């Protein structure tokens, strides 16, 4: 991770709730990949004391594009300080065929870049949306992605089929519900598979509000089976097999 500066080249409103910022970033961030994020602070101070975690949805013409809520107002030409990259690249299985992504009550922004990459390399992607996630503008996702709708109890058509069909599952819940939702998902999956759930099969995304983003403050800690994990440095995708649900 390094501290660099970036310039907001373009501010594009993509829905009532979301805007995309096109950022000219330092060369050292050229290698940023899906899963990693930017920990940002406008140089002119801005409204919030802490930095904000900006999640990239892709790279266009060498510029990193991030998707942020419209509440905060940004202007082209604005300079931001970035601590980046924060977190790890999504850990994808070798020769992945079928990816199942699940977003319930949380905007699927973290899946946009991932889905595009997967489709590009010919993998089949199914995205289950539920609750608030249903409000997300689907045109922002690759056309090849199959969309399913989940109900409020995280059930969706052919749930068992899709879960068994998938080589890998990544779920996204709202931060206040991680413990319950991811535990529930893990149980469901363990019941499906007589043998143990394999490592690297089902992941939860952890986007706690970060204080430091560097692994220092421990505010984003996730209790682990063997060792504890940190959302900022080990995440955002955490293998649920490694999480100690209390």
């Amino acid at each position, binding site marked *: 991770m390094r501290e660099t500066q970036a310039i907001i080249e373009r501010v594009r409103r993509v829905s009532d709730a979301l805007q995309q910022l096109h950022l000219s970033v330092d060369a050292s961030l050229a290698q940023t990949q899906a899963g990693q994020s930017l920990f940002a602070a406008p140089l002119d101070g801005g409204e*919030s004391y802490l930095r904000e975690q900006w999640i990239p949805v892709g790279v266009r013409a060498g510029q990193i594009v991030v998707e942020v809520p419209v509440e905060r107002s940004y202007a082209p030409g604005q300079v931001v300080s970035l601590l980046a990259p924060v977190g790890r690249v999504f850990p994808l299985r070798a020769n992945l065929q079928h990816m199942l992504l699940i977003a319930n009550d949380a905007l699927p922004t973290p899946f946009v870049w991932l889905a595009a990459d997967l489709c590009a390399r010919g993998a089949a992607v199914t995205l289950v949306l539920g609750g608030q996630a249903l409000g997300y503008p689907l045109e922002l996702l690759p056309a090849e992605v199959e969309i399913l709708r989940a109900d409020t109890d995280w059930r969706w058509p052919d749930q068992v089929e899709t879960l068994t069909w998938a080589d890998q599952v990544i779920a996204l819940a709202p931060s206040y519900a991680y413990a319950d939702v991811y535990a529930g998902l893990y149980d469901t999956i363990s019941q499906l598979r007589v043998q143990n759930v394999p490592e690297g099969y089902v992941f939860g995304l952890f986007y706690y509000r970060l204080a430091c983003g*560097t*692994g*220092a*403050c421990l505010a984003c800690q996730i*209790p682990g089976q063997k060792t504890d994990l940190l959302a900022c440095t080990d995440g955002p995708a955490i293998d649920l097999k490694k999480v100690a649900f209390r």
Partner: protein
Amino acid sequence: MIELTRPGKTSLIVNNPVMPAAGTFGFDYSPYRDLIDVGKLGAIVTNPVTWRPRQVARGPRVVPLPSGVLIHTGLPNPGANRVIKQYAGRWARSEVPVIVHVVATSPADVARCASAFERCQGVAALEIGLHDQATPDDVAQIVAAAEANTLLPLLVRVPLYQAVALARAAEAAGAGALVIAAPPRGTTRDPETGQLVGGRIYGPWLKAQALRATGQVAQIAGIPVIGSGGIHSPDDARDFIEAGAVAVQVDSVIWTQPRMLEVIARNLGGLELTRAVGALGDEWEPGLGHTMQIKRERGRRSTSTKDEPPPDDSPPDWPAPKNEDPA
């Protein structure tokens, strides 16, 4: 060269009066190694360590405040022994002295931690974090327990609200230095959950409260005082030195602008801190608060002892705190 703790059997000497506060920098240098030149710091203070492992708190842990933040981590840590296994190696390799922050959960636990770290290479000193509800008696027991089990220099970090009374108790019990102060607790509503959350609060506004407490303690302390709370700039840090601190601990600005920690260290690095500890108050020329002098001194912002306290006839900004001892 700054003597951070009282001269005696062992004392901690540092090259720079600036270091991070407990809980802000991690258990070693690694979180900020790529972001700042750790070698420019006077020391590293580790995250809080308890004898028994502690799990992270549940519920919201980071809640925004007006120009600040509330943090409620629950002081997660794997316990003293596993912390040593994981980090002692790096501590030994650290460019700057490592001060291990021990949470004062109980005298017995503190004793165990003290002897564990005593035997651990690469630990330069211990900082004991007093609990907010600690009484002077608790402090006496806790410091005694540590003293009995280690020769390491002992810093005691005192809660803001009881700073003077607990600082007195800590010094009397043999503490080597005082850290003024641990951030206060607050309660705020988490916008995401609508839930009320309690925890430590950080931000630039904390400085006014911490600076006053530092000044009050420096007036009575016979041992070195380290100022801490809301420092966000070199000038903030100088104010604490001027208030009688020999060094400072920087807190949440490390999270928002990591480089500022190094900037503050570089700025204060030049300082010659030869003042007798606690004597600063006397060195101030009383009459100087008086308006015409102020006019002459106007705009001057130095760490010299000339910068004047408020006029005699107006109350001092850190009045000699008689009666403040709850005892």
